[in-house]
């Protein structure tokens, strides 16, 4: 059985950027800041492409929700090997109130509409750090979930997933269709080559609205404020190991 895969990708502030809180405490400064694909989403795309290369997956649909710029993120997924893209367009203003629950409703609706049997996502976005969307999507579809996956194997109608848990690893078996969220160790994402980037420009990208999918974006969790975390007081440099141990003794740590 060849699988049809839906991969969710999110556009976030690049992981290496030091973020700044807006002076009015309403959020983070995003204008003019480098954005890229969420690192965990890259891993999800890579896994889907590898499954396609193994002829387990027949088609990969990359989807992203958000403003116009998300199309760049979808293009990146297409350049990595996804077959076509769906941009669920949400205006920048409306997007501010969109959270994992709203995105999972969109993904669940698309999974049904596109008749996919595998949804691949990253385990968390590095901006909101929620770690919810995959689990919620699985719940809405009533599909099993393989979260924090570091290994995925398709065996007939079943999926064997090795998961990263607190004490080590665990292996579970899921009935397809299923939702999988990628951990860092799942794979090493490839770089899109220039020819592939050029080819990706010709790949199909469809734009839909959440309302087309029957999804209401109302979020009942509101941001009250966003603030800088407390700053640590600058410390001291010590010259020798003896000094270090003396300081730690003084402060009662050893």
């Amino acid at each position: 059985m060849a699988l049809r895969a839906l991969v969710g990708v999110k556009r976030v502030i690049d992981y290496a950027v030091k973020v700044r809180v807006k002076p009015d405490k309403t959020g983070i400064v995003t204008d003019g800041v480098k954005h890229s694909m969420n690192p965990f989403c890259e891993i999800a795309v890579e896994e889907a492409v590898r499954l396609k290369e193994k002829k387990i997956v027949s088609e990969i649909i990359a989807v992203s929700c958000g403003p116009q710029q998300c199309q760049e993120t979808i293009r990146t997924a297409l350049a990595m090997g996804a077959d076509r893209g769906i941009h669920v367009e949400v205006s920048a203003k409306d997007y501010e109130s969109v959270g994992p629950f709203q995105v999972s409703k969109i993904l669940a609706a698309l999974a049904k509409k596109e008749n996919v049997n595998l949804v691949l996502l990253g385990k968390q976005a590095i901006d909101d750090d929620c770690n919810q969307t995959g689990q919620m999507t699985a719940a809405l579809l009533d599909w099993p979930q393989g979260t924090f996956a570091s290994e995925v194997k398709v065996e007939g109608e079943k999926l064997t997933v090795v998961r990263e848990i607190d004490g080590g690893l665990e292996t579970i078996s899921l009935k397809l269709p299923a939702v999988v969220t990628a951990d860092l160790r799942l794979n090493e994402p490839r770089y899109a080559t220039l020819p592939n980037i050029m080819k990706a420009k010709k790949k199909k990208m469809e734009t839909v609205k959440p309302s087309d999918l029957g999804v209401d974006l109302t979020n009942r969790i509101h941001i009250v404020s966003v603030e800088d975390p407390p700053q640590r007081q600058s410390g001291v440099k010590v010259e020798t190991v003896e000094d270090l141990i003396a300081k730690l003794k003084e402060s009662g740590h050893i």
Partner: protein
Amino acid sequence: MYRTLSTGKHRGASTLRRLLSTLVIAEHDTQQLTPVTLSAISAAKRLGGDVSCLVAGTDCTKVTEQLAKVQGVSKLFVAQDEAYKGFLPEELTPLILEAQKRFSFTHICAGASAFGKNLLPRVAAKLDVASVSDVIDIKSPDTFVRTIYAGNALCTVKCEEPIKVFTVRGTSFEAAQCSGGSATCETVAPPAVAGLSEWLQQSLTKSDRPELTSAKVVVSGGRGLKNGENFKLLYDLADQLNAAVGASRAAVDAGFVPNDMQVGQTGKIVAPELYIAVGISGAIQHLAGMKDSKTIVAINKDPEAPIFQVADYGLVADLFKAVPEMTEILKKK
């Protein structure tokens, strides 16, 4: 008229009681309660109301005994069934929904561990509510504080969902006391088996050292250790300090140590009394996992390493000399 009024009053009082009922999903390994559950209970107590706990598993006897004594827990719901082997969310979710249907909790929470993160969003979506992850502070029953952008911003959110579903950062709440409690215990019949998933096996990293997320002292190594064998230097030092050993992503990716040792945004969050970072540069993603430690020590040969900006005590030195030296001095005491 009077009757209507009194009914209204009665309803009002019961709504008030309803405002104050929290279900904590207990995490355990059938032998022992996971420490993060005790933090979740403390967080639940902060909400100001009745706190109940749900214990599900193939064997709940020991954990139920432990939980019954935990201060602040008034009721225990116990569901023992073979279906809960491996604590699969596909099986636990219907059970929690069943409990919710019967008791109409206003809050459902668990520790923000791999278990809680896996389970609670599934429960929330089934309840048709958005949920709040990794809460570090509770301002009021509907207002929570959490970190975003790898701990580089604090976000206060107001949750207007009828049921608040959230996970709790263990290091942000004291553990509830394990004695003095007297919870009543009720058995819950498990709902039908979902059968969507199956737990096959686990391979846990065995260690005599304290558990990473609850250790008082943590010694962590990074790329600077150069290889897995050299981590022995850190194990020796950790032994002298009764410390847990952690690692940066670089050390995990390079295969020096298993990934359950990773401290950071995508690994574990720790906040020990003392955190000793050895050969770790201090990338944003690593700092996210340890910058709430009470005292931070950095040992690094690069004086420009960002880790020195958060370290209380910094030693610019070659770790291969400094760490064994430290171990020797500590041995002599």
